[in-house]
C-alpha cells in the first residue's frame, strides 16, 4: 500500500536519508529502527508529504505524493515526533477541527470525535486545555488525531516515547488492534516494542537501510539466540563448565556468577541447536540441583548495536 523508492534527502552536506526503499502492505506493522539521527523522522516526513524528497518517490495506494498530495494525505494518519498539538485548545475542540478538515460535518463530525475518544480512552481529559494534560493524555490526543478518519495508512513517529509502562502497553494494544486492516509504519527506540507489535523491522543507520527482516530473524542473529542460562545450587563451579562444554550441541560456556552457594552459567549452542533438554539431562545425571533454566530468544539490543555500529553512525548526532 505504501511504496517508497530510492528516497533521498540532504540537509546541506549531510545525507539525512540516502536511497531508502521499502514497501508496506495492509496488515503489516513496520518497525522503523535506528540510532538517533539515523533519518527515521526525515523519512516519515517525506512519506507524509511534509518534506519534499531530493530524489526518489513515495506512493500510497498508487498515488504519488509529489503529483497528488491531497489524495495521499487523505489516506494517511500521521503522528509527528513529539506529538505536537494546539495547546490552547481542548481535546474536543481540537479533534473537531481535525475531523472537519478530514471532511466530517455536523452529526458525522460529532460521531467521529466520540468514537475516537472512546477508542483511545480520552473521556476524562476532553474539556481541559491540552497544555494542562499529562503526557499520556497528550499522546492519546495525538493518536486520536491520527486515526480519527480511519486511515488506510498510519505513520507514527515514536508513539510510545516518554510514556510510562502502562501507557506504553495501552498504545501498543491500540496499534495491534488496528494492524489487520491498515498499513502501519512506526518508529521506535524500544526494541522490545518491535518484538511486541511489529511484523517487520527495518533498521536504518546514517540514512541507509542496513537491515530489513522480521523481528524473529533479528533475534536469530543474536549471539544469545537459543542460548540457555541456568542456576545450580552448588558451592563450587569446578568441573561444571567443562562438563557442559563437553556436550556436543554446546559451543561455549560462560560463568556469570558463583556465590552464596549458587552458580549461574550461560551456555551457547553450536549453530542453531536446541540445547535445553541436553543440559537439564546432564544436570540430572550429575545430581546438580537445577534451580532455574531459561531459554533465551535472543537479545535485540545486541543485534541492533552490531548492525548499526559498523556504519559511520557514531559520528552523527
Amino acid at each position: 500500500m505504501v511504496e517508497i523508492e530510492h528516497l533521498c534527502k540532504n540537509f546541506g552536506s549531510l545525507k539525512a536519508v540516502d536511497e531508502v526503499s521499502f514497501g508496506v502492505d495492509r496488515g503489516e506493522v513496520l518497525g522503523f529502527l535506528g540510532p538517533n539521527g539515523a533519518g527515521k523522522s526525515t523519512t516519515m516526513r517525506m512519506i507524509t508529504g511534509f518534506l519534499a524528497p531530493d530524489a526518489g518517490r513515495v506512493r500510497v495506494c498508487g498515488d504519488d505524493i509529489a503529483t497528488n498530495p491531497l489524495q495521499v494525505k487523505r489516506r494517511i494518519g500521521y503522528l509527528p515526533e513529539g506529538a505536537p498539538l494546539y495547546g490552547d485548545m481542548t481535546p474536543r475542540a481540537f479533534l473537531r477541527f481535525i475531523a472537519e478538515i478530514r471532511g466530517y460535518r455536523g452529526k458525522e463530525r460529532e460521531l467521529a470525535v466520540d468514537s475516537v475518544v472512546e477508542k483511545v480512552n480520552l473521556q476524562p481529559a476532553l474539556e481541559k486545555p491540552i497544555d494542562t494534560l499529562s503526557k499520556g493524555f497528550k499522546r492519546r490526543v495525538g493518536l486520536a488525531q491520527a486515526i480519527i478518519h480511519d486511515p488506510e495508512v498510519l505513520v507514527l513517529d515514536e508513539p510510545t516515547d516518554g510514556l510510562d509502562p502502562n501507557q506504553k502497553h495501552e498504545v501498543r494494544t491500540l496499534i495491534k488492534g488496528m494492524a489487520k486492516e491498515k498499513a502501519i509504519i512506526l518508529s521506535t527506540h524500544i526494541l522490545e516494542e518491535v518484538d511486541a507489535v511489529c511484523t517487520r523491522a527495518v533498521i536504518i543507520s546514517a540514512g541507509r537501510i542496513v537491515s530489513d527482516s522480521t523481528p524473529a530473524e533479528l533475534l536469530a542473529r543474536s549471539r544469545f539466540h537459543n542460548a540457555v542460562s541456568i542456576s545450580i545450587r552448588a558451592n563450587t563451579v569446578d568441573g561444571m563448565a567443562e562438563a557442559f562444554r563437553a556436550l556436543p550441541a554446546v559451543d561455549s560456556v560462560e560463568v556469570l556468577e558463583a556465590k552464596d552457594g549458587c552458580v549461574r552459567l550461560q551456555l551457547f549452542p553450536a549453530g542453531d541447536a536446541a540445547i535445553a533438554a541436553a543440559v537439564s539431562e546432564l544436570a540430572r545425571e550429575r545430581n546438580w540441583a537445577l534451580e532455574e533454566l531459561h531459554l533465551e530468544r535472543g537479545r535485540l539490543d545486541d543485534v541492533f548495536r552490531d548492525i548499526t555500529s559498523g556504519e559511520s553512525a557514531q559520528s552523527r548526532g
Partner: protein
Amino acid sequence: MPNVWTIFKRELSGYFSTPIAYVFLVIFVVLSGVFTFYVGSYFERDQADLRSFFQFHPWLYLFLIPALAMRLWAEERRSGTLELLLTLPITMTQAVLGKFLAAWAFSAIALLLTLPLWLTTNYLGNPDNGVIMASYAGSLLMAGAFLAIGACMSALTRNQVIAFVITAAVCLGFVLSGYPLVLEFVGAFAPEFVVEAVGSFSFLSHFTEVSKGVIDVRDLVFFVSLMAYWLFANAGVIELKKAE
C-alpha cells in the same frame, strides 16, 4: 474552500482563548480614544468628523498589527504543529488564507468596537457618513496589508518577538515612504522614478486618499495587491523553510 473556513474558525477562536485578544482590543479602543480626543483634539477642532480618529490609524497599526500577526506562523513553528497542519489534506493556499482571514477578522472586530465614536459624532453633529464609511474601509484595508506583511514575517522565524520587530520595521518603511523627508532623502541619490515608486508605496498617502471619502480603484488595487503579494511570499517562505 470549506477548509479555509475550518482553519479560519480555529485561528480566530485561538485569539480569544488567550488574554492577548482582550488586551489587544482594550488597548486598541483606549488608544483610539486617547489619540482622537487628546492628540487629535476632537473637540477643539469643532468639526463633526472623525479625521482626528482615523489619521492616527497608521501609527496605531504600526505596533498593534505586528502583535496580532506575530503568532500566526511563528507559534506553529515553535510548537511543531506546522508539521501537523501541513500533513493534513489542505493546500498551502488554504492554510495561508485561513490564518490571514482570521487575523483580519480580528482587526475588523477591533474596528467595530470603535463604532460608538461614530455614533457619538452623529449625535453631536452632522458628519459626512460617506467619508467615515470610506475611512473605515480604508482603515480595514490598511490593516489587511499590515497583517499580510506580518504573516509573512511570522513565517520566517519561530520567535514571536523577532517576528514582531521585523514586521514593525517593514511596516514603518511602508508608512514613512510617503513622507517628504524620506522622499527627499531617497531623491538625494536615486533617480526620479525610484522616488515616485517609493512614494507610491506609502500606506499613508493611499490611506489619506481613501479617508477623504472616495475609494479610488487605484487605492483599492494597491492594498489588495499588496496583500496578495505578501501572502504569496508567506506561502513561499513556509514552503522553503518548512524543515527548519
